[in-house]
């Protein structure tokens, strides 16, 4: 998947805007939005919000979690916890990036927020790398990835599934050659194929 597709999917998130025009509700295929009343906040999909903001037709209300105190707390929590903590939004990086690039003026302390969000992302990324390292060395085929966001999953997509596929392929070859050459089998089990690889990959 392309990063652009991740952004495309993330643009479905709802965000609050304050329009400076009035209009009847719009019935989009994805659901209805509005009515728009000048000065009153209304929830719209992010793609619509960025479009309207570029046209100077609204102000974007930053989501609740885009706040220094909350984010600092999340950052500390993320540092403390061994596991991934739950993020306030499924697509927090996409939302933050889009909101802050289209409407930096609508976000108070924009630059600081940018830094802290990037910090959180970095902490999570490095945690992710460490756990992937442990996971691959542990010769697992299954892992739970709760609380990871789509973008983070995507960032390891080029490496994690492929390396696992390769390992699985080697193991299959190993079991196959084991069957062929019963002579070698004794030494092979010890070295190349893991202790519990056989039943699954030989099918």
């Amino acid at each position, binding site marked *: 998947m392309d990063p652009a597709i991740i952004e495309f999917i993330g643009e479905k998130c709802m965000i609050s805007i304050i329009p400076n025009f009035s209009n009847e509700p719009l019935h989009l295929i994805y659901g209805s939005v509005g009515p728009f009343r000048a000065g009153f906040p209304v929830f719209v999909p992010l793609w619509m919000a960025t479009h309207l903001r570029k046209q100077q037709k609204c102000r974007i209300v930053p989501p609740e979690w885009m706040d220094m105190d909350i984010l600092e707390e999340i950052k500390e929590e993320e540092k403390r916890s061994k596991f991934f903590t739950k993020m306030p939004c499924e697509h927090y990086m996409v939302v933050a990036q889009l909101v802050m690039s289209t409407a930096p003026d609508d976000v108070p302390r924009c630059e600081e927020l940018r830094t802290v969000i990037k910090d959180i992302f970095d902490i999570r990324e490095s945690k992710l790398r460490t756990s992937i390292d442990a996971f691959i060395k542990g010769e697992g085929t299954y892992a739970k990835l709760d609380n990871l966001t789509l973008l983070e*999953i995507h960032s390891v997509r080029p490496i994690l599934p492929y390396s696992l596929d390769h390992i699985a392929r080697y193991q299959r070859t190993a079991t196959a050659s084991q069957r062929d050459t019963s002579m070698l089998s004794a030494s092979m089990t010890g070295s190349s194929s893991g202790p519990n690889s056989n039943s699954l990959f030989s099918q």
Partner: protein
Amino acid sequence: MSDVEDVAETQLEIDDTEGAGLEDDDDDDDMEQITAQKVLETLETAWINEMCAPEILPSQADMLELMVSQVAHMEEQMRDLDKNDFRAVVHSMELERVRYIMASYLRCRLQKIETFTQHILNQEASREPDDKRLSPEETKFAQEFASNVDEYFHKVATQYMPNQQRGEAEQRIVTPNLMSHVFLKANVAVPAVIVGVDDEEVDMAAGSQHIIPYQLVADLIQNNQAQLI
């Protein structure tokens, strides 16, 4: 003013016979009702699943057809609107997004058909008419693609080769690696999923995410109990 407004709310109707196998197993004899929103959600899930899955998944041709007619219908309604009208702009932006999803979905399937042509055709031949995975158009494409490739190879290369190298069509079949790892999110709680060696089992909570070899969860995806991410 209200001409565009109600477009998206129109209820779409599909034939029960064609719609068989969709989520709603309503016992309505004649028609099954489904909203445009539901169709879009189904398509979106199908699109993401298709992008992530190693093999080709059942075609959503019915849903696509509904969506195409919905999009055409909305464009029809929008024709009278001023191009710079706020509503026209937003509606056409959404239509662009919908069209992108549909195009990307179809493109992704074509790519798989081109890569695994022979394998997919063989599988289709062994399936019952009711659980064919390709739409009639895709089947036609796959067959023509296969015969064109064969003919081309024959013309430029294999006819000049010694006999024993020709009859190896069977060995040239490219098959998807069904054991490749995928990322998965459970839609509902699924108890006791076998997740690997030694029949180890795990209960998946609703909304939880996992990385797992595709083949072990292929049926969950088809039953819509889980989706790929």
